[in-house]
C-alpha cells in the first residue's frame, strides 16, 4: 500500500500527465484511494498501468457501490495491484444518477484489463451502470428479462413476510 506521501506523489504525477482526472485522494485505515472523474478514468487507468514507476497492471477487483442518499450516488471501484511490489491502489470514480430511465454511464476498461469483462457485467446487472464500449453488456447473475437493478439501495430486499402469530391471519399468502 503506498503510504500517504506516496499517494500524494502518485496523484501529483497523475495530475500532470492526465489533466482534470484526479478529483481527490483519500487515505483511511491503510487504504490509499484515488478519486477520479469518470470522464478521465480510462486515461488514468492506462497511466497507472503503463507508467514504469507505477505498473499497477493487475486489476484485482472492479465493483460498484450505491451511496444513496449521498450524492453523487454511484461509485465504481477499481482495486489495482502491483504484483512485484505488492502494493494496492484503490481507484474510485463517482457517478451521478441521471434519473429514472437513463442509466449512469462510464467508459469500459475491458481493453485495458480483460478481467473486467464479467465484473462490469455484474456491476451493470446489479446497479444499472452502463459501461460504454463493453463488448457484451448483458445481465449475468439475474435472469435475462429481469426488470430492475437489485443491489441499488432503493430496490426492496424482496422475499416474503415471515409469519408469526401476530400477523399470520392478516398476511396474504403466495397463492392469494
Amino acid at each position, binding site marked *: 500500500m503506498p503510504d500517504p506521501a506516496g499517494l500524494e506523489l502518485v496523484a501529483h504525477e497523475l495530475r500532470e500527465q492526465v489533466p482534470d482526472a484526479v478529483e481527490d485522494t483519500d487515505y483511511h485505515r491503510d487504504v490509499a484511494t484515488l478519486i477520479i472523474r469518470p470522464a478521465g478514468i480510462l486515461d488514468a487507468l492506462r497511466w497507472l498501468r503503463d507508467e514504469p514507476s507505477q505498473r499497477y497492471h493487475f486489476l484485482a477487483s472492479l465493483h460498484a457501490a450505491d451511496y444513496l442518499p449521498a450524492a453523487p450516488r454511484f461509485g465504481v471501484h477499481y482495486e489495482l495491484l502491483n504484483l512485484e511490489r505488492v502494493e494496492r491502489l484503490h481507484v474510485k470514480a463517482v457517478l451521478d444518477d441521471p434519473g429514472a430511465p437513463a442509466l449512469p454511464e462510464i467508459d469500459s476498461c475491458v481493453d485495458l484489463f480483460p478481467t473486467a469483462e464479467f465484473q462490469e457485467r455484474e456491476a451493470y446487472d446489479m446497479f444499472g451502470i452502463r459501461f460504454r464500449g463493453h463488448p457484451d453488456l448483458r445481465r449475468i447473475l*439475474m*435472469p435475462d428479462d429481469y426488470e430492475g437493478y*437489485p443491489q441499488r439501495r432503493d*430496490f*426492496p*430486499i*424482496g*422475499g*416474503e413476510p*415471515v409469519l408469526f402469530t401476530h400477523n399470520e391471519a392478516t398476511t396474504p399468502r*403466495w397463492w392469494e
Partner: protein
Amino acid sequence: MEIKARQLRARDLLKGDLEGVDLDQYVEERVLTTTLERALNWARSNALWPATFGLACCAIEMMSMVGARYDTARFGAEVFRASPRQADMLILSGRVSIKMAPVVRRIYDQMLEPKWVIAMGACASSAGVFNNYALVQGADKFLPVDVHVPGCPPRPEALIHGILKLQRKVQDRPDLGWRTRYEAQGTEEWPHPNVGAAAETDIA
C-alpha cells in the same frame, strides 16, 4: 433332527400328502404372501435412485452421504442417475434461485412416474437464511415435495433419516392425496393418457 423332519415334510408335500391345516401352516411358514401393490412398493422403496441435483452447499453433504462413511448404497440409493429419465427421486440440495426454478421444474417433469422429491436443507424447504429477491422461498412453491430435511446443511445422517422416512412412506402410503391437490400427476413431458391433466385430451 429338525432338518430331517423338515425334509420329510417337504417330501410329503411334494407327494401330496399334506392336507388342510398342515398345508396352510407349511405354506405360511415359508412363502410370503402379499398383494402385488405392496410388493411393488417394497421394491420401489428399497431401490430409490436419486437424480444428481446438487445446487449448492447441501450438495457437498449429499456427496458425503454417498461416501464411504455414511453409505446410502446400503439403503438402495445405489447410483445417482445423471439422466432424470432413469431416476426415481430428486434430492433438491441447495438454494433454488429464480433463474434455476424453471430448470428444476423441467427436470422434475422429465422424470417418470412414480417419482418423489426430497427438499434437502433449509434453503430448498423454505429459502433458509435468504429471505430476498433472488430465491424461490421454498421449493414447494413449484414442485410437490414429499420430505423436507431441515439443516443448514443437514448432516448426512439427517439426510439418510429423510430417505428412510421417504422409504417408509413409499412402502406404506405412496400417495397421500396431495398429488391430486397439486395436480402433480401426469406432469411428464408426454403425460400418461389416463392420468391427470392429459386424461381429458385425446391421445392416440
